[in-house]
């Protein structure tokens, strides 16, 4: 349990997250309009989305399927009967004057997500529910000095609202939860989970309490749009609440906004100002009734999800739990890893994992790109590993070759050939160099013979320097020992 030490003692932070994830579907939840990101304003809008008089919603089957698949991926109960309700409020970017959502009877009930925490421990976070709802449009305040423009492209787009139980206790746990949830959504192909595009947004419910005490009053911080901001918002809001309580104040149940520029949360509206949404079943839509056999078909067709894949990586490839966890965190990484390992005979999975988590991740980070855009694809990395395995190049040289591959996009064999980096394993050639180096450095040779083992490393360095790093390090070591003994 991670506690925060305040002025008057320790506090426990209690966090629940509500994630809105845009569903990958051909069209909106209740209309046939397309949902392309970044389209010109008001080009992805049907008569239904614009709430023209007399227009009626018709449920998109694909959206339902995606919600059910997500529920199955979260090991959650699928509710065979669910009900769409209207959540009524006025806002210029909400054309109907209500959002069609699910309230008392969501499509997905309780489930859970298993988190691998940075300290190596495992934690289960409960899922309270998942429901389907419409997104709102967007108000554009910067198009005109005293008018607000409305873009309805997003109006009616399918969202899944995924509500966790208040099971998290720190920003790190919240971040791990979001990372894992996003991975599951991406494995399932039900949401891109791109927070920067607004395809995934997060509301934070947070309260603090003395360890073991009853739950405190919570605040809800709305629409935080990156995992880093979620951590920042949690850290700020927890400290703020603790400071208020330690100064003898009380926490107001209120809605707050996170200001990423300043890293603070600010009150948006209090409980008294809260909307009365007047939910009631949408009379334009019949209750949604699912066939249990259809749900089972979807269950059978689910792809392998991160937890299962991790277990398989450990069992099949002999990876450590940590390495397997890192590799499966993103579907692309896990796919890349498997493509490397399976791309050639006898490839060493552990070596592949080390290269991906070391060199490849470092290069991606340095260049700020995704794996999909990496100049060294799985086939090329596999080629490089093969050259190490068959002794053509040493591990040290391989790093230079990798850098050259990254910069040029060429394959490993070509780089090795062009630069003449082939490892020298010819004992005769190496022995000649060893003999020369030992002869040229009698003082150091004497030190080694006197028992200073460290000097051997210096000699290896000299031989490697003389061979531009291409001598087989094992052979060099052995020949040096023979020569110096």
């Amino acid at each position, binding site marked *: 349990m991670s506690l925060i030490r305040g002025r008057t003692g320790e506090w426990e932070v209690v966090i629940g997250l509500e994630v809105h994830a845009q569903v990958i579907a051909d069209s909106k939840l209740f209309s046939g309009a397309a949902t392309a990101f970044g389209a010109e304003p008001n080009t992805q809008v049907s008569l239904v989305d614009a709430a023209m*008089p007399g227009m009626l919603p018709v449920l998109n089957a694909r959206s339902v399927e995606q919600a059910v698949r997500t529920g199955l991926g979260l090991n959650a109960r699928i509710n065979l009967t669910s009900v769409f309700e209207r959540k009524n409020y*006025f806002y210029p970017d909400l054309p109907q004057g*209500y959002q069609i959502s699910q309230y008392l009877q969501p499509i997905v009930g309780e489930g859970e997500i298993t988190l691998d925490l940075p300290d190596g421990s495992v934690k289960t976070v409960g899922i309270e529910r998942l429901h389907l709802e419409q997104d709102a449009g967007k108000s554009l305040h910067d198009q005109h000095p005293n008018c607000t423009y409305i873009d309805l492209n997003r109006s009616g787009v399918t969202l899944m609202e995924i509500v966790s139980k208040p099971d998290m206790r720190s920003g790190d746990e919240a971040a791990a939860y979001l990372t894992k949830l996003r991975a599951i959504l991406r494995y399932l192909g039900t949401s891109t989970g791109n927070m920067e595009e607004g395809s995934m947004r997060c509301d934070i419910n947070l309260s603090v309490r003395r360890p073991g005490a009853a739950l405190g009053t919570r605040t809800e911080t709305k629409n935080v749009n990156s995992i880093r901001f979620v951590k920042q918002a949690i850290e700020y809001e927890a400290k703020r609440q603790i400071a208020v309580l330690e100064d003898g104040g009380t926490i107001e149940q209120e809605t707050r906004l996170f200001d990423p520029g300043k890293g603070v949360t600010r009150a948006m509206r209090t409980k008294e100002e809260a909307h009365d949404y*007047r939910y009631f079943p949408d009379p334009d839509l019949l209750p949604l009734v699912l066939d249990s056999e259809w749900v089972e078909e979807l269950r059978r067709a689910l792809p392998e999800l991160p937890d299962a894949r991790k277990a398989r990586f450990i069992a099949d490839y002999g990876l450590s739990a940590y390495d397997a966890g890192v590799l499966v965190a993103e579907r692309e990484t896990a796919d890349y890893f498997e493509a490397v390992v399976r791309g050639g005979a006898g490839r060493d999975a552990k070596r592949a994992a080390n290269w991906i988590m070391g060199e490849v991740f470092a290069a991606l980070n340095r260049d700020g790109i995704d794996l999909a855009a990496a100049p060294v694809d799985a086939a090329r990395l596999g080629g490089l590993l093969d050259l190490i395995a068959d002794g053509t190049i040493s591990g040290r040289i391989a790093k230079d070759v990798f850098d050259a591959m990254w910069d040029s996009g060429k394959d490993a064999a070509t780089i090795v050939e062009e630069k003449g980096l082939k490892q020298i394993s010819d004992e005769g050639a190496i022995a000649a160099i060893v003999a020369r180096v030992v002869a040229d450095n009698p003082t150091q040779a004497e030190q080694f013979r006197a028992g200073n083992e460290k000097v051997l490393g210096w000699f290896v360095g000299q031989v490697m320097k003389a061979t531009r790093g291409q001598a087989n390090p094992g052979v060099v070591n052995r020949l040096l020992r023979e020569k110096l003994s």
Partner: protein
Amino acid sequence: MTRLNELTIAAARDGLAKGEFSARELAEAHIAAMESARRLNLFITETPERALAMADAADARRRRGEAGLLDGIPLAVKDLFCTEDVLTTAGSHILDGFHPPYESTVTANLWRAGAVLLGKTNLDEFAMGSSNMTSHYGPVESPWRRKGDNRPLVPGGSSGGSAAAVAARVTAGAIGTDTGGSIRQPAAFCGIVGMKPTYGRCSRWGIVAFASSLDQAGPLTRTVRDAAIMLRAMAGHDPRDSTSVDRPVPDYEAALSGDIRGLRVGIPKEYRVDGMPDEIEALWRRGVQWLEEAGATTIEVSLPHTKYALPTYYIIAPAEASSNLARYDGVRYGLRVPGRTPTEMYEATRGEGFGAEVKRRVLIGTYVLSAGYYDAYYNKARKVRALILRDFTEAFESVDVLLTPTAPSTAFAQGEKMDDPIAMYLNDVFTVPANLSGLPGISVPAAMAEDGLPLGLQVIGRAFDEETMLRVAHVIETAAGFDAEPAFVAGR
């Protein structure tokens, strides 16, 4: 020969088929009738050019041998149906200048059957009313007059323009919508036939919504046969309306066999209200007698929750309306009254755009859905609604149709009941149960009251059994032999 504008749909259909007159001649006669009736304020928008163009197209189709079910028949359309490029107002200021870029499914079905649009008829604002007094475009005047009294009367509502136009022989048929009686009550007041089909029988797509779980389109005509002809063209499954039902549409006209021998007719004993005139009771008894004489059995049945139907309706309908009308915010179409902030703009637009009755219902609806009141009102109303439906389901185990009066009074004068919304709402006391339970109902003109105004009888059928309901209505129509005409008949 009868003037063309006084023909029934069936007669016009036959005349067109025999080549006795062209669709254009028929349209011209109706346009002239429409113009001659302007003082009744029946139409918000007249569409004579469109009517003539559609009539010419109908004549061309007939020459090619491609005539549809309603080919060349002029119809009036309640201005709650969206009609492509034709002003659609819902009788409200807030839809000023709204020309829909789309056509409602029901009207599209009618045009596909060859029908001709005469114009868009006046109505209570957003179909909220039983008098046609709440229209932004002014009240509709009934073509009827009380005996010895020249005060203008209401046609009933909300489909008052459609009902009065049919009664005044401006058109043989019109379409309306019925949320709590808005077709059947004005039909009874105007001495015509008005029918609300089963919920889900006609698509609601493109109809300005009042209360979505209750709204249903239906025909207003002068004969049961015409109602049957029109319903066949209007009905059908529409994938764009999730509450529309995928069942085949029968030939309703073929159901009018006149033979109701052995049919069991239920007489619900609860269909009485305080102060209901004896002559309505008497007419009801006469209806029983007509059906028995035709070979049906009548059975008294009990629908014990009937007395809760009106309060239930006046919770559910405003609740849905308060949400349905939220979209009229001045942002995208219709009236916009500017304000410094979006909230100010909403308030100004809705304050000016909605009339008093609409505001009253939006307020009631908002209230009954509010936190703290939801369970006491809306949720309880939903439960009572289920009980009302159960009453009907149980009754229909022993009977095939139900016979009731349509309304507890004859038409009243313009201005009457305006200061007493409860008395106004009482107009719907016999019609709302069919809406709450989704069942089909039809009002047939059956007699003249002592005040010289028509009275209607209502037949309520099983869900999707419009055929039996129409057959019984047709027998009543025949037995009643209602042939009274209103004081005003267009073109005379």
